[in-house]
């Protein structure tokens, strides 16, 4: 049971880290960035490629991987979102646009095989790969019947520290106040002299960097890196997390991530593995019925 609880906290941390990126963009822009799961995968894939195919150390690859995902945030903003915003396109257009980008990113990685155009990025096509033994420092300890693996344990403090830092930035810094002002009312923020586009760009860079980091941690801890890890493992769960926690709320995304991990564990222990997602989404449904704003979300009110 102790091991199972530890595993639930680990996977909850991944969900939380991933979902914060979703919620950050939703909080500021009121749209869902569905390219986020592709960025999650991109972070893991590029870091793996830098280590295995380009001979970089894991730590250097990690930094470059997160940075590359930050750049991907710029791509999302400049290609998928800003042109639509300029034309005052409805949110659904932005949603579709980000889905399109996600498909393109996944397809590009899928096509990466030796001798192809994308070989510099990825050479394993649709295959699932893992970091070779020894490429990532990952000691394992066995204590009181528990298997403690460094890569899994480390994710928990990394997630908590990052969330605390992000919370501090949002609450107590100039940038954070600017972001919150844009979230509250972009037009008013612009009239107050804020560069709204810059704030939105910054949001997407931070969000994508966090998504990429979550992907890297996922790939290291689970030994599973493929073009589909974002789509198959976290995309829908990430949406569930932000609904559970409250759309647009960072503490909500963190709480929602851990809550989803725990709900899945309880479902697994009580009903078996196959019940995990069913029970999790039943809980989501209940939340939508009983408390639509989620755990930490503000009461939804229609502005007139």
């Amino acid at each position: 049971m102790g091991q199972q609880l530890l595993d639930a906290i680990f996977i909850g941390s991944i969900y939380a880290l991933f979902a914060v990126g979703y919620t950050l963009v939703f909080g500021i822009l009121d749209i869902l960035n569905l390219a986020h799961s592709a960025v999650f995968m991109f972070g893991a894939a590029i870091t793996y490629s830098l280590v295995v195919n380009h001979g970089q150390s894991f730590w250097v690859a990690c930094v470059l991987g997160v940075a590359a995902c930050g750049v991907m945030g710029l791509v999302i903003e400049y290609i998928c979102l800003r042109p639509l915003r300029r034309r005052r396109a409805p949110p659904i257009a932005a949603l579709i646009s980000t889905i399109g980008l996600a498909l393109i990113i996944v397809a590009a990685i899928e096509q990466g095989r030796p001798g192809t155009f994308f070989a510099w990025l990825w050479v394993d096509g649709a295959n699932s790969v893992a970091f070779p033994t020894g490429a990532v420092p990952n000691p394992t300890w066995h204590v009181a019947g528990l298997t403690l693996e460094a890569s899994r344990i480390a994710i928990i403090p990394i997630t908590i520290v990052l969330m605390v830092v992000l919370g501090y930035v949002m609450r107590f810094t100039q940038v954070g106040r600017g972001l919150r002002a844009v979230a509250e009312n972009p037009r008013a923020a612009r009239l107050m002299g804020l560069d709204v586009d810059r704030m939105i760009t910054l949001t997407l860079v931070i969000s994508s960097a966090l998504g990429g980091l979550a992907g890297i941690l996922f790939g290291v801890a689970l030994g599973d890196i493929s073009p589909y890890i974002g789509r198959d493992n976290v995309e829908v769960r990430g949406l569930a997390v932000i609904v559970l926690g409250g759309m647009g709320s960072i503490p909500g995304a963190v709480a929602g991530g851990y809550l989803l991990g725990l709900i899945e564990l309880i479902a697994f222990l009580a009903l078996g593995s196959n019940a995990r997602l069913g029970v999790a989404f039943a809980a989501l449904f209940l939340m939508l019925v009983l408390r639509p704003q989620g755990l930490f979300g503000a009461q939804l009110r229609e502005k007139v």
Partner: protein
Amino acid sequence: MKGVRLVSFLAAAIVVASCGSPPTSSGNTNTYSGKVIKLGAILSITGAGGVYGPQSRDGMNLAVKQINAAGGVLGATITLTINDDASLKATAAQLTQTLIQSEQDLALLGPTLSNSAVGAHPLAESLKTPILAVSTTGIHIVPDCNWSAATQDSTPCKYVFRDSLGEQTAIPNNIQSYANDAHPATGVLLVASDDKFSSDGGQIVQDTVGKYGINLLKVIKFSKAQPDLSGEVTQAVQLKPDVIFITSLGGIPAKIMTEARKQNWTGQFLGGNGFNTATVSAQAGAAGMGARSASAWYLGNTFPSNAEFVSAYRTEYNKDPDQFAAQGYAAINILADAAKRANLTFTDLAGDRDKLRATMETVNIQTPLGPFQFTPQHDVKQTVWVIAMDGKGGFTLVHKITTPTA
């Protein structure tokens, strides 16, 4: 001078005659020269089956290249299109319809996954087009492609064949060989219940273990979309089984092996066709060392045409082939042999498809898989190779079973 003229006339007559009719050994009366034999392959190049599809594709392309370079099928050129079903059943079915009705292919190959075959094969059967499965190993692929739990329809399908070794043969032979070697007493089965290949394999394990004195302590079912299987593995390891059976495909076997070894479990992994590619062995790494499966092919097998195949494949792709490449390569040679003897008209597509189906039933050729003939059920009967992962992305041979029990 008269003699010279006579010889010249006879030589010319022979040349003209040989151009106008195929060699007598084929028994054909129609002309193949300059014609095109259109084949379409439906493979999983992307998605979960993307671990296996590219190898099948490479094996097929190599065979087509070799046959065409050697003059084609009695002068007819083979064209092969590779179509990616993205590991999706609906896409596989849609492609089947397109290739048969729009592209007017003579015969199809694939799809990669049993899960997709359930959608594609009944369609090919209803449209009376031969389809040769090259990697599908689930239950009811042949002979009864229309079988489902709802219909229980076990009518033999006339147009569906496979050159891949069914799990109903592979898994029991693998279990039997390990039971003979190590006499395990207990086992746990980990099975992805939302995938036909995996659940069929799981059913075969459950049906088999008792015969060899193995007590199946628990069947742990999970979804293939479950990101972290450590909970499931923990549950399995805590039961301290001698064997963990894994019948899944793609990245799942490696995930399970890695997690179980992290938890200090030292027992034996036994699996199915999902193990049988270097990609899975490489992903499992040291954790997979010794994991056994029964394979339709082994790199070092001594069948006469295997050495040629391995050498040509290495030259073409600068890497070793695997079982899926060998099965794809064999499939093209099987279809080429059948086409050679089918007396195709190249004008009556429906008739040609039927003739091809009939000659496929009598194929008898040498392939890298060994001497090849279909059984009356359109299945393959062949040598089974029990192989073990070597911990470095390859395999070692454990047993060669020339007369499989199932």
